[in-house]
């Protein structure tokens, strides 16, 4: 219950040298303890996979990683510094593909992405190429409400690709996507990891990928 004042142990030191690391995370929501004493470490090129049923705390853990939840115990570190002490810097290094896309239904795809561009550093990718790769190049001027759920997902993916960040947080990225779309997501993640990026992914199904994977199985 109370913060530990002792020096970090050897394992903890190892955790601290990783790019993204967490030690002894405990989260209690209302009456339920979602996880207790959770550790993980993630380095460039690695994938952290959160597995488990729906409602087992995957989303909560992801929100905690994004610095949006206050934990009962433990801290999450980015470059060895607690996330909550450098929230703004850390948020400049990540994109969060959440369950709800966070896109405005009344705005067009381009208007939505333009908003994102004024908030976050953009990558050197050519937007047109990204749209073409995701197969949404024809939908640019349509308001989002006229797009299907799968197409909206793809717009959210475009937002992720266009941002210049090393860390991708993906909460159930395969929802509403067809077989082809799922394959596309896996390719994108593989490319991102191949370019020294990192990814935290919550999924309730198996993910096969050619990269170092750390799995956290949640009850």
């Amino acid at each position, binding site marked *: 219950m109370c913060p530990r004042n002792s020096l970090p142990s050897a394992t903890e030191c190892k955790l601290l040298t990783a790019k993204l690391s967490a030690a002894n995370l405990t989260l209690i929501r209302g009456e339920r303890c979602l996880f207790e004493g959770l550790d993980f470490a993630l380095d460039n090129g690695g994938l952290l996979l959160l597995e488990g049923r729906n409602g087992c705390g995957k989303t909560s853990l992801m929100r905690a990683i994004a610095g949006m939840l206050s934990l009962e115990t433990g801290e999450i570190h980015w470059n060895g510094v607690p996330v909550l002490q450098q929230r703004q810097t850390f948020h400049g290094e990540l994109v969060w593909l959440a369950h*709800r896309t*966070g896109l405005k239904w009344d*705005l067009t795809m381009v*208007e939505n992405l333009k908003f994102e561009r004024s*908030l976050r*550093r953009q990558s050197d990718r050519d937007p047109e190429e990204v749209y073409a790769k995701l197969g949404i190049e024809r939908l640019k001027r349509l308001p989002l409400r006229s797009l299907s759920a799968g197409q909206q997902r793809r717009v959210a993916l475009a937002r992720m690709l266009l941002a*210049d960040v*090393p860390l991708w947080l993906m909460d159930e990225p395969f929802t509403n996507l067809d077989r082809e779309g799922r394959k596309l997501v896996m390719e994108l993640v593989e490319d991102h990891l191949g370019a020294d990026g990192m990814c935290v992914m919550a999924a309730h199904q198996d993910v096969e990928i050619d990269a170092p994977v750390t799995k956290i199985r949640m009850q």
Partner: protein
Amino acid sequence: MTDAHKEQPSIFSGLAATARRDLLLAWKRPGDVLNPLFFFAMVCTLFPLAVGPSAEQLEFSGPGVLWVAALLATLLSLNSLFGSDFEDGSLDQLLVSPQPLPVLALGKTAAHWLTSGLPLVLVSPILAITYRMPMSVVGVMMLTLTLGTITLSLLGSIGAALTVGLHRGTALLSLLILPLAMPVLLLGANTVSLAAGNDVYTTGIWALGAYAIASLSLAPYATAAALRISNE
């Protein structure tokens, strides 16, 4: 991957982007702007119907009625300040953006004022004339309403941030905001009354201005803190 030389967009870009997006959304959904205005006009109509059309009484109660109606109309529009962002997940995206949250909250509040406070100020002369308010007083009333609605939007953003995502948030929001808004109403309406009675009214204007500046500098931080708490 990360290019160290490339910098994040400036906070002004963040401020402008949030304000611009909300203005664009209001443009595409004019109902959200117009409904509080209609409400304002209707409340102003209720009073003559209830207390009678005598010129003397209308002249006397005009400033108070207009101010109460403006306060209620602002309250009505506050619920949507963060509500729709919460529902579609874009509030979460704002919370993980590399921009300082108080700045983004200020941008949203600015857009809220431009789409709720400013139209009220612009419409108020028409209603004031029906209350037989002289033109010189109408000017004072518009000035107090301008300063007052800025403060109301800022105070309201704190309440809206505290109640975002709660069931039955609307009633609760009124309960939280009304006591906070009472000084604004008191200063605003009485300043207009003073002006109508040919008294010195500058004290009220200065007080309203000071209140607006104080809330402009403090409220965004409270709103940002409240947003983080509500979204835990």
